[in-house]
């Protein structure tokens, strides 16, 4: 534990050094440029991250660069992969849109057994992806699902409310010590470093995934997130992912998150539990619906 913590701190120190350089000169990945933008401040002088944010990319389909695919779950066809029978009815709506990827270096460094599990996950996507059952999304996946989330930031608290499944994160500003119990959304502890909010997330269970392509983790997952306003309506989001039971080294994703500027934008109800009852319990109705 202690050793792990030290490793984490070293990792964070290295990451912040990189970020410092990035702020002054280097382009931040995913962005055309990162000028020395100074965020508007809250009344207590911190960069103001309040607002409704959302990713605009294909990371939730597949973190890595990928071409379009016929469906999230595939079967072999006479001339190449086709949508699996259980997702066939969705047609083009069920296809996977192409994406340039959000993984730095594009490689997810799986250990051999974990890579086999990832492939298995992908082959059995419909029955395995926790998103299908409306389970809590975990971190970092919650931040790049196709739903907005809202950051509430005051001098004494930071809180994130996600539209998807009504997931929430209370972000501790003081470390309360080790998480008392493993959870889907983990235990988040934040600190400020100049323009950047750094959130250290631990205490996960092993149930959530990273995307609809079967990318996953164990309960040893440790995520370090960095939120930096780089334009009035853009946050740069980075997450360093470490899980020695699943990956051979830490790896990093990064992407912009955009402010929802739509008129009347708000976090609305997406209580999807209701929407999966037929899937999960329909067979137990007194009169099951006809197929």
């Amino acid at each position, binding site marked *: 534990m202690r050793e792990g913590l030290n490793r984490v701190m070293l990792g964070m120190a290295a990451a912040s050094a990189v970020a410092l350089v990035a702020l002054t000169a280097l382009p931040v990945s995913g962005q055309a440029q990162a000028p020395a933008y100074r965020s508007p401040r809250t*009344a207590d002088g911190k960069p103001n991250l309040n607002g409704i944010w959302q990713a605009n990319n294909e990371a939730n389909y597949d973190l890595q660069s990928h071409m379009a695919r016929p469906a999230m779950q595939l079967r072999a066809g006479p001339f190449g992969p086709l949508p699996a029978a259980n997702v066939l009815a969705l047609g083009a709506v069920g296809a996977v849109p192409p994406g340039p990827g959000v993984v730095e270096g594009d490689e997810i460094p799986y250990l051999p057994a974990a890579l086999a599990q990832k492939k298995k996950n992908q082959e059995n996507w419909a029955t395995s992806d926790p998103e299908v059952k409306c389970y809590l999304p975990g971190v970092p996946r919650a931040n790049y699902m196709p739903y907005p989330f809202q950051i*509430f930031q005051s001098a004494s608290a930071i809180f994130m409310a996600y539209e998807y499944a009504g997931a*929430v994160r209370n972000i501790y500003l003081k470390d309360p010590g080790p998480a008392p119990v493993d*959870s889907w959304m983990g235990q988040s502890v934040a600190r400020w470093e100049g323009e950047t909010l750094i959130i250290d997330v631990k205490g996960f269970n092993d149930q959530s995934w990273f995307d609809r392509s079967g990318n996953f983790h164990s309960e040893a997952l440790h995520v370090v997130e960095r939120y930096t306003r780089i334009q009035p309506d853009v946050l740069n989001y980075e997450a360093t992912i470490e899980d020695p039971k699943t990956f051979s080294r830490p790896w990093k994703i990064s992407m912009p998150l955009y402010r929802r500027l739509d008129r009347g934008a708000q976090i*609305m109800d997406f209580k999807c539990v209701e929407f999966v009852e037929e899937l999960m*319990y329909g067979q137990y109705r007194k009169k099951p619906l006809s197929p």
Partner: protein
Amino acid sequence: MRDRMLAFAGALVVAGVVASLGLVAVEGQTQVTRAPAAAARPYTPPRTADGKPDLQGVYDTSTLTPLERPTADVHMTDEEAKRVEAQTAARRERASLPSNASRQAPPVGGDGSSGAAGNVGGYNNFWIDSGDTVVVINGRPRTSIVVDPPDGRIPRAARTAGRGFAPAAAVAPTSDAAENVVTAARGAYDNPEQRPLGERCLMGFGSTSGPPALPVLYNNFKQIVQTPEHVMILTEMNHDVRIVRMNQPHRPKSIRMWLGDPVGHWEGDTLVVDTTNFTEKTRYGGSSPDLHVVERFSRLDDKTLLYRFTVEDPGPNSPWSKPWSGEYTWRLAAPDDHLYEYACHEGNYALGDILRGERLLEKEAEEAAKQR
């Protein structure tokens, strides 16, 4: 939960809470119409960075004071409060004793008791966290959360009077249904949609999220975070968030939300939250989507928030004969007390098993009938 409330109410009667009706009526009225109870003791709440009263924190809303009261007086004496609290503590201590290893198995179908730990035993004492103390406002312990009407009873409309929370046949229980509500209605186990919202993990039970937010059997924590434009109110069970938009009009009627559409403004040091635009799914107390709840949040002192609410349903089928109001305190949680992730749906084996069990019983009954 309801059973526990009733049990508690019974205990109060036994404890001999007697009061003069005339005096009580005046007292109750006064509580409702006067400015916030804090007025009696001037207190200036701390301010947020933008100068508003700071209501932020993690609160424990559990209490031994029931929603309604069978007695006349909204107040009880300090001695009575101490007795109620001591009785509860003693009962919990007994319930926490190790079980007798040589005890017999419970009888098939349960032992006839009801409540959270009744029947075949839903919970043991460990899970139950419904408070250790009664509500105290202005130094005086309270016998009920309802303060208006002054008799401390919800003014049910004639058609629902006496029916309590019992759901009509083929109607799913409402958002304030108890966690262990017994739905004996015909067909109550035919479909998942007919089970209580709490059992389906769609919301917490007993109107824990509200509005109106009421204390329940366990997981009574709330968290408030304020920004210049919003006040966020989190209910621990089922991680339900209400995002109060400050100084904004309500959404159009086409936008309806499980917990309604809350908008807020400040009246002095009191946060007033007005909530409308409910769905037809929550139906607090049997209300319509026209349910209208006004809540008032103010700080009584550094550790106590006074939560007051008025409930009305202007629709033609209101379950109440007139608007009614309640108030109780939320206590700041100890700094080392955690608000936990209430991942209900993710581990909800019960809903499927309850329905599956019913199908199994039906099949058994069918086969038994064939053999006869």
